[in-house]
């Protein structure tokens, strides 16, 4: 049913429909509306969950880890500094193969303090073993939560997931969202069946220490699960599409890319602006297309290679910077296209919530076509003086 709703509320409703048994979360802007909405649902008994009002994000994810190990479906949400505080637990959840699902209302990391959007927070957890899905709009942000539970808890995968959607730009924006009914959600997200659980009737130990004789194999096993997710995510997307009509079967999504000379590569809400800018450029006769990255982890190397095989220039929009190197998405794209002659230009853009307009996208394309990439786009020279 189509509802005009705030992104955070739509996400909270979808999460509630996934029937988490334990929720642990801590307030942080711009994520807070999600966990407030879930708290209301618990208070009104519209969902049947234990809600742990922890004293920090670090404890939020630690409590989720414990509850997951004891056999419950769990949920948390955070952003920015909160995610940074969870750093250690993030690696632990993946290492212990706990299928936690967590929403990230993406926000910049301090210092300087910023509450506004970029992707530095989740990108900084790139190597933690969590799947990372990025949403373009609130419909996608909502739907990816059903998908994340289904795939994370799949016994072929057993990895935690971030569902990333841009702070404020999506989290606080009202848009029409087609919500599933509870029956539809139940038919798509099966009842949680833990692979192992803490159980006095069948005692096992979780979280042992591994000597050099064993550690590498654990890491390899996580990576193998990520590899399997390259198949299981699209499979879950296809089922979603067959059941509800919206297509998330691709780890990437192409827009007007078939005959494009220049491809823009981007993640998240900026893709909406890029699509509008592409329509304008197309009207003016420029052959420009978009490759949207939906899954950053696992990174869809083959899909990227296939989608970009026919273009002559690539412009990557990175809402993050690996300081001392490049944007994280551009590094992946260059790796995927290694051996091809396609130039990949990196644009660090929109850090800390700086607005991006259609004309900025056109300027990026002009820059890439002129071969002058690898820049911070839109720096204010007067501030740097």
């Amino acid at each position, binding site marked *: 049913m189509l509802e005009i709703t705030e992104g955070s509320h739509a996400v909270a409703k979808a999460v509630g429909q996934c029937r988490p048994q334990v929720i642990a979360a801590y307030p942080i802007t711009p994520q807070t509306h999600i966990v407030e909405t879930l708290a209301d649902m618990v208070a009104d008994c519209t969902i049947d969950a234990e809600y742990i009002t*922890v004293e920090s994000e670090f404890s939020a994810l630690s409590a989720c880890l414990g509850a997951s190990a*004891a056999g419950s479906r769990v949920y948390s949400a955070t952003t920015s500094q909160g995610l940074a505080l969870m750093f250690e637990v993030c690696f632990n959840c993946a290492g212990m193969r706990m299928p936690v699902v967590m929403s990230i209302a993406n926000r910049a990391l301090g210092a300087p303090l910023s509450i506004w959007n970029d992707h530095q927070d989740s990108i900084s957890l790139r190597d933690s073993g969590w799947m990372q899905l990025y949403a373009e709009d609130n419909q996608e942000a909502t739907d990816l939560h059903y998908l994340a539970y289904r795939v994370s808890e799949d016994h072929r995968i057993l990895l935690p997931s971030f569902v990333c959607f841009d702070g404020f730009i999506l989290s606080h924006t009202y848009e029409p969202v087609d919500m599933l009914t509870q029956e539809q959600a139940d038919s798509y997200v099966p009842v949680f069946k833990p692979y192992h659980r803490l159980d006095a009737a069948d005692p096992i130990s*979780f979280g042992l220490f591994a000597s050099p004789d064993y550690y590498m194999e654990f890491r390899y096993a996580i990576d193998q699960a990520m590899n399997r997710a390259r198949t299981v995510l699209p499979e879950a997307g296809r089922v979603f599409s067959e059941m509800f009509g919206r297509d998330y079967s691709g780890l990437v999504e192409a827009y007007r890319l078939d005959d494009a000379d220049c491809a823009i590569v981007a993640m998240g809400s900026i893709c909406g602006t890029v699509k509008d800018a592409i329509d304008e450029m197309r009207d003016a006769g420029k052959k420009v297309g978009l490759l949207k990255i939906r899954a950053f982890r696992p990174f869809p190397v083959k899909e990227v290679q296939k989608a970009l095989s026919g273009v002559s220039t690539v412009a990557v929009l990175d809402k993050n910077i690996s300081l001392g190197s490049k944007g994280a998405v551009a590094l992946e794209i260059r790796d995927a296209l290694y051996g091809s002659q396609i130039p990949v230009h990196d644009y660090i853009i929109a850090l800390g919530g700086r607005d991006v307009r259609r004309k900025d996208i056109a300027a990026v394309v002009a820059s890439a076509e002129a071969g002058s990439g690898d820049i911070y786009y839109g720096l204010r020279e007067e501030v740097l003086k």
Partner: protein
Amino acid sequence: MKEDEAACVLFDAGHRACGGCAAAMAARLILDAAGKDTIVVSSTGCMEVFSTPYPETAWKVPWIHSLFENNSAVASGVVESLKKQGRKEKVIAIGGDGATFDIGILCLSGAFERGHDFTYICYDNEAYMNTGIQRSGATPYDASTTTSPAGKCSFGNRRPKKDLPAILAAHGAPYVATASIAYPPDLKKKVEKAVNTPGPCYIQVHAPCCTGWGFEGEKTIAIGKLAIETGLWVNYEMEEGKITKVKKVVRKPVEEYLKEQKRFRHLFKPKRNDAEIAKIQAIADRNAEKFGIEIKLKK
């Protein structure tokens, strides 16, 4: 030990603890008291490392370790998950004094304030032993550790022990107790009481560390007893914030305890430091007065 008796031991032999390790004794006694329907949440530390080198484990109850500082938070999640499933297992979080007094106190405070139904047991060996004997908030006054070494201008650790039981009692914990591995029946009784008391309960177990304190492994129990007999460690129970039971002793001078341990050797060699020993005696005297532990012998 008889064979059927051995089968009931829930913390198994074959772990890698030092000979005479009080933490290993504590693990065994805790599970003896709590029984098999117990889920243990360990913090990183000696006990975690010596009991679970993959692919082996000494734990015959369900056991989980996540990080150094988060066992209270993990336990919170376990407790609420069990509640949601209608399951009845008891949850015990176990941590060393570093995990409990220092790095994990945020999670511990949060979990106690929220009132989860679990028991937290600190095995207190009064320093970071797993990393090589560094001082913690539980290290006693004048103890020499690798980060509070005695030296030409140092008498060792400059601060007295943090009063963590009082801090947790102030959270409204229904049951707080101190215990010692030197008194096993008392320790077991306290564990039984804690796991059967609804809400968050705390037990701090004095766990002398032969490696870190510098004494022979066969003296662990004797050292534990001396701590009690000198008044430097007091075994007591607090219910609803009030002290309800205290172990009384005929007090011995503190130097009988100090002189047995290398961590206090600088107070006796190269020459006896009466001024510092007097300060430690004053700590014991204050404990004796505060808790009323003294048994006065009739002359």
